């Protein structure tokens, strides 16, 4: 592995160069610049897959490799190398990011074909790929933070890509601000870690598979808990977990490929990655772990409920994403027993959710950018490939065996039932119910979109299958949705593969027998799907009915914006108002008084400036006279003294 590590920087380098060329190239690249983006992405993808296969082929003991580029900063006891760490976890992500990213680049070529700023779009996409790769390849929290902020920036730029529309700009701003709240957690975590261990790199902090000595082992309970909670805050911000989930729905304002890549497959999972990567810290802090699990459970139910009420196809998928990441968080909070399954579900989710989003984009493409599902229906006849690919995605997310989602989600539900006391029952139950709700809203989505009767009219809408470059990525992702889970789960390949990083899951027995759980899960899922199909198969009113209290609340994202406003924004505004008053009333007035005093003094002194030459001459003469008198006196005194 060491012989090829030198190529690793190019993983980041290709897309970064692509972004630079596209941004600096100007109008000249407008016509064909997107192919540069595709090229950079392809290069990165090929290199990434090659490295991934090299690693697969390498001896398991050699699978963790650090590659230091240069010393980034050196301050006191802190030396941060700009270094990359290649290990199974990061390479998994590299594979996911570069491959899905590549597919979405291809998809975007057509999807953005008529946008005047396509070049800029591809530049941002490349920038995102580079930043995301920095995030996952980093070998210290500080370098990770670069990528962390980089993906935040790329996300901001892409959500607000059509920033001439005010809602899009506001959504971008919202995402950016809420991410900053999460970043605060990461910064606090880094500060705490550095304060107590004096290091920020994974090797020292977490211990590599080889050395095994980890600095975090020396942390006391309280500090570990604090760091864990801070990391959780960071993860919540990036991954749209409760209570920082509000931005993800609005982020759908960005172009659909962006939603697929950033807000479904990759960036939003960075929080999960962070928690998994920081596993040793969480292991040392059971309280923090418990909080993570609670957050994950709440979010998965929360997202699922919201998803049931949304008519906007993209927002429904976004809520679904939130919910699915809740599963991953839940798993990550369970400790070594769940880390591998969190990542596993992350990978499968990356594929089927990206596929679903691309399908949604394809539907929108055919339906004049209409997103309201109440205007769809019976589209399977006109968009066959899209319908089929989404169909497999649907099966995958439902967790129907043997599709991808089954293998990962079922394991998480199983893991949630592991434990003692009340916890397995509560968390396991939440996960089980979540699966049922997921089945309901996904079936609702599929039914409203592809099945039932058309609720659109021909001359106004002309649904049609998307061009090849848009369809084939969907097909590829659909294949992934079908088979990836099974392949990776076969013989526990994936968990073994991740072992050097996350440790061995070990064998834990759930509180209920595994076949019972599996049966219950499938049962709940089927029930949800049947209800969903039955409810939306026939008549879907064009106007949403008023619905129950829960429905109305869910449509409003369960009042998350209201809560945010009441809890954060209003007090914040109050504090700001007080500060402004203090500023103008105390500080500014104080300085104004001082300035007024100086001005008054100046006005008084100004009287000396009569403007009359003769007055000035008089002062000069007075000066000469004084000097003369002084000299005379000094001379006289000197003479007297001398005498």
């Amino acid at each position: 592995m060491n012989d090829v590590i030198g190529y690793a920087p190019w993983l980041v380098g290709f897309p970064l160069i692509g972004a630079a060329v596209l941004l600096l190239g100007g109008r000249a690249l407008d016509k064909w610049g997107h192919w540069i983006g595709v090229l950079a992405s392809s290069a990165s993808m090929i290199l990434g897959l090659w490295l991934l296969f090299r690693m697969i082929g390498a001896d398991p003991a050699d699978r963790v490799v650090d590659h230091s580029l240069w010393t980034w900063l050196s301050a006191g006891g802190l030396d941060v190398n700009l270094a990359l760490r290649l290990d199974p976890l990061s390479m998994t992500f590299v594979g996911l990011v570069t491959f899905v990213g590549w597919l979405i680049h291809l998809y975007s070529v057509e999807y953005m074909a008529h946008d005047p700023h396509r070049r800029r779009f591809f530049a941002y996409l490349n920038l995102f790929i580079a930043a995301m790769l920095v995030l996952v390849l980093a070998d210290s929290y500080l370098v990770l933070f670069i990528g962390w902020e980089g993906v935040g920036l790329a996300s901001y730029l892409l959500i607000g890509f059509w920033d001439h529309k005010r809602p899009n700009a506001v959504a971008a701003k919202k995402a950016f601000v809420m991410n900053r709240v999460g970043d605060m957690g990461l910064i606090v975590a880094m500060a705490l870690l550095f304060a107590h261990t004096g290091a920020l790199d994974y090797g020292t902090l977490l211990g590599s598979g080889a050395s095994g000595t980890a600095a975090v082992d020396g942390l006391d309970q309280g500090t570990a808990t604090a760091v864990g909670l801070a990391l959780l805050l960071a993860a919540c911000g990036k991954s749209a977990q409760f209570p920082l989930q509000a931005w993800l729905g609005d982020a759908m304002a960005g172009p659909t490929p962006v939603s697929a890549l950033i807000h479904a497959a990759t960036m939003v999972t960075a929080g999960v990655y962070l928690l998994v990567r920081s596993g040793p810290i969480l292991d040392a802090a059971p309280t923090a772990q418990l909080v993570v699990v609670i957050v994950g459970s709440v979010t998965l139910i929360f997202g699922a409920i919201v998803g049931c009420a949304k008519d906007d196809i993209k927002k429904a998928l976004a809520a679904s994403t939130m919910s699915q990441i809740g599963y991953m968080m839940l798993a990550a909070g369970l400790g070594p027993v769940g880390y591998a399954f969190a990542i596993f579900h992350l990978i499968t989710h990356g594929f089927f959710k990206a596929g679903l989003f691309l399908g949604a984009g394809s539907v929108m493409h055919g339906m004049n950018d209409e997103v309201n599902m109440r205007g769809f229906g019976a589209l399977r006849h006109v968009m066959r490939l899209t319908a089929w690919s989404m169909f497999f995605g649907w099966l995958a997310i439902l967790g129907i065996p043997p599709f991808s989602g089954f293998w990962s989600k079922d394991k998480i539900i199983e893991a949630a039932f592991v434990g003692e006391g009340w916890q397995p029952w509560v968390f396991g139950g939440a996960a089980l119910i979540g699966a049922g709700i997921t089945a309901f809203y996904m079936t609702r989505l599929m039914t409203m979109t592809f099945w039932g009767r058309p609720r659109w009219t021909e001359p106004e809408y002309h649904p049609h299958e998307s061009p090849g470059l848009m369809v084939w990525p969907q097909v590829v992702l659909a294949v992934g949705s079908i088979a990836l889970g099974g392949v990776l789960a076969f013989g526990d390949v994936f968990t073994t593969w991740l072992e050097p990083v996350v440790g061995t899951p070990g064998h834990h027995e759930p509180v209920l027998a595994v076949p019972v759980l599996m049966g219950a899960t499938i049962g709940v899922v089927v029930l949800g799907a049947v209800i969903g199909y039955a409810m939306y198969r026939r008549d879907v009113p064009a106007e949403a009915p008023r619905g129950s209290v829960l429905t109305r609340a869910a449509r409003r994202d369960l009042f998350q914006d209201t809560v945010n406003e009441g809890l954060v924004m209003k007090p914040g505004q109050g504090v700001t108002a007080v500060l402004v008053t203090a500023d103008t009333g105390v500080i500014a007035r104080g300085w104004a008084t001082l300035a007024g005093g100086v001005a008054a003094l100046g006005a008084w002194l100004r009287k000396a400036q009569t403007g009359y030459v003769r007055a000035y001459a008089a002062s000069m003469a007075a000066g000469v006279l004084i000097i003369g008198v002084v000299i005379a006196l000094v001379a006289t005194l000197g003479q007297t003294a001398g005498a």
Partner: protein
Amino acid sequence: MEITNYVVLACILFAIGATTVLLRRNAIVVFMGVELMLNATNLAFVTFARIHGDLTGQVLAFFVMVVAAAEVVVGLAIIVTIFRTRRSASVDDVNLLHG
């Protein structure tokens, strides 16, 4: 007679010139006061040259004369310019610098 009487005379003339500058308002007369001061210093230079038997004092007096000529040329040109715009040669009317 003591030669220093010349220096005393120079002092008196200098003081009178300075007072002229302070008291007269006509810019041209003010200028004349300056000239009187310069002349007084010249007298002192010449007298010291005589006392010390060194012609350098006279040379310096010569320089004073030349510089005074240059100063007068520019000064009077300024006065003429001011007079053209203000119809007045009083130094008190040129008080745009007042605070």
